[in-house]
């Protein structure tokens, strides 16, 4: 792995703070990636780190964090051993909250908050025509989701909770995550005037400012997800004029024993399917990590595939991996661990 991938040389501001500290100071983080790559687990791990100040580089600084999940099938609560949200904000502890947000509910809130509502307006809103039209209005629902999340970083919600220091959005798995991030621009082209159009413009400018909004992309070191994340980086650059803050490469098979270096497959018994699977998946991982690194020189975390079911124990391990990769070397061991995994992937290539 090249030295450029070390987080210590990728300071966003050059202020000497770690990427982890920098991310924790944003108001809004969007965690994006293809379905099944562990996006929710990364979102939950980052949220837990920030809420509990769990990394040395955070120096115990704790933030009040809300994870917003956009997926009809709830997922995040399971990782944090919390009850399902069913649409509401669920409190996990003093500083950690989770919500499964229905885009339609966000849209209703947007309308309530930004438009004067009389009887007539209420009737328009409940009409089937409006329901159908708002489905087709480009970017309207996505803007509503962003509006909701951003709003919760500034004010107390209708549920009496908040404001939150940081909202972490676990972006929808379908389509490229960029359709969410590009929605405000799109909508503001369609609606020139009025509060919704103004709000879309506001959000578009908010998204273009890395100091306010962080983008963390998650992928597996496998062909399709890696391809998709590279396309995502390119679209973010073109459409939003900025770049993602970090790349998390998740689910890596462990390194092979040194003794296998020359020709791994010759070292294991013929027909030892499990050993062969390990060797070959590791090989794919290396190939795809190399491909990702050829196009991405920003901060990245390499997280192992772990023999753990989805739950708090997994989150604990991932937190540690993220803290080591993105927290600047407050303890030497973190940097060393990072370096050793880095050298190893590089050497095996």
């Amino acid at each position, binding site marked *: 792995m090249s030295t450029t991938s070390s987080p210590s040389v990728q300071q966003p501001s050059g202020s000497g703070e770690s990427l982890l500290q920098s991310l924790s100071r944003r108001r809004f983080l969007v965690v994006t990636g*293809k*379905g*099944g*790559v562990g996006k929710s687990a990364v979102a939950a791990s980052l949220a837990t780190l920030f809420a509990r100040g769990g990394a040395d580089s955070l120096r115990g600084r704790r933030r009040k964090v809300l994870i917003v999940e956009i*997926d009809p*099938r709830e997922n995040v609560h399971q990782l944090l051993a919390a009850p399902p949200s069913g649409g509401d904000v669920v409190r996990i502890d003093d500083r950690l909250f989770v919500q499964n947000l229905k885009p339609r509910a966000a849209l209703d809130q947007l309308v309530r908050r*930004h*438009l*004067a509502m*009389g009887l*007539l*307006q209420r009737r*328009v809103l409940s009409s*089937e*025509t409006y*329901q*159908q*039209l*708002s489905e*087709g*209005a*480009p970017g*309207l629902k996505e803007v509503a989701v962003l509006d909701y999340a951003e709003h919760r970083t500034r004010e107390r919600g209708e549920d009496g909770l908040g404001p939150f220091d940081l909202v972490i959005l676990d972006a*929808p*798995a*379908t389509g490229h995550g960029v*359709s969410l991030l590009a929605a405000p621009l*799109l909508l503001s082209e*369609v*609606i*020139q*005037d*009025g*509060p*919704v*159009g103004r709000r879309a413009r506001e959000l578009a400018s908010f998204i273009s400012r890395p100091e306010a909004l962080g983008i963390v992309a998650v992928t597996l070191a496998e*062909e*399709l*997800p890696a*391809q998709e994340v590279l396309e995502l980086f390119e679209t973010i650059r073109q459409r939003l004029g900025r770049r993602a803050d970090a790349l998390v490469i998740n689910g890596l*098979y*462990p390194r*092979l*024993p*040194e*003794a*296998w270096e020359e020709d791994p497959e010759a070292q294991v018994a013929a027909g030892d*399917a*499990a*050993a062969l*699977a*390990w060797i*070959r998946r590791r*090989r*794919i991982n290396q190939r795809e990590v190399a491909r990702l690194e050829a196009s991405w020189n920003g901060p990245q975390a390499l997280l192992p*595939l*772990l*023999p753990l*079911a*989805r739950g708090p124990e997994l989150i604990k391990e991932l937190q540690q991996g993220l803290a080591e990769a993105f927290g600047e070397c407050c303890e030497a061991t973190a940097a060393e661990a990072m370096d050793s995994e880095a050298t190893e992937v590089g050497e095996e290539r």
Partner: protein
Amino acid sequence: MSETLNRGVGSKAGTSRGLRDPLTVVVGSGGVGKTTLAASLGVVAALEGERVLVMTFDPSLRLKDALGVGEEARESEVAVALPESAPGELDVSLLDARRTFDRLVERYAPDAESRRRILENRFYQHLSGSLSGILEYMAVERLFEVAAQERYDRVILDTPPTTQALDFLEAPQRITEFLDSRALKIAVREWFDSRGQLRAARRLGRLGRRMERFLDELIGLDFLRDVSEFFRAFGPLYDGFHSRAAEVQKLLRSPRTSFLLVAGPGEERVPDALFFARKLEESGHRLASVVVNRVHPRLDSSGGKGELPWGPGSGEGHELMRWLGQRDHQGVESLRALLSQHPLVALPMMADEPTHLGALEVLGRDLISELTQE
């Protein structure tokens, strides 16, 4: 009409053992390897002498390379170069919502002027690429086109990855309902007068002006104007949409269509697979078999504690592989028990995605032989 359709796909089919039905629809969550399996089934059927079409959405670069097709497959079916001795034919088409929609408009619009009005409409441009379910609906339209051509013995249809499991099956229904809906009837009316004001709003006076302002602020009057124009320009196409959607629904429920459900490995994926199976059943579609894909091999835990069967430095890998093997085995067993009325096949994790036709053939033959044994 539906008879024509049924004859259209599969008039000479039935040679590939294990694939009895001329239309196979491959369903499952994203990232489970549906597309590769669909392609591999297509390769085998063509090598056995059938004329086969594989319709797919978003194949990896590697799979496109393996099949030797590129972006041109978005425009029309592209023939895959099979060995010269191969008795059959294999075509691949990549489904692209926007392209299919454009083609429909080009084909069915009554004249050049309405065609231009639709294609240049801003609402259409957003709608055709972004409306949820449009990709699925377009797959259905494409299926209709293909079935009507009567060119193929067998069609293997890969479905788009969605979070809402069976959007694809519901798309024809949804589009039919939409076309019948009051919303559309309202939308087709002329909303705007020659001065570009909302008709209803003008009639309603002050109240109307308030409503107009409200709509303008919410979604923009310009946008509404585009919508209204679009629906009026689109009007002549409605009937065709309607009848085609109904035909394709019949085709998907016909006894000659079967569904192949592909599931990811591991206990955590079990609910996904169950959800698909239940939905298919409820909606009157026939689930022929379940494939659990990418199953890690099982490692027996013989050998005493502290011993490393793979030698020094293999501890972490061994523990992980054992855990994965166990997890996937449990997943397969749970599904087998829960879906006991359907044949279930577990396919081992592959070394890599197939990079050439030969590898696809091997995969396809493995799958078909497992399916026939079940």
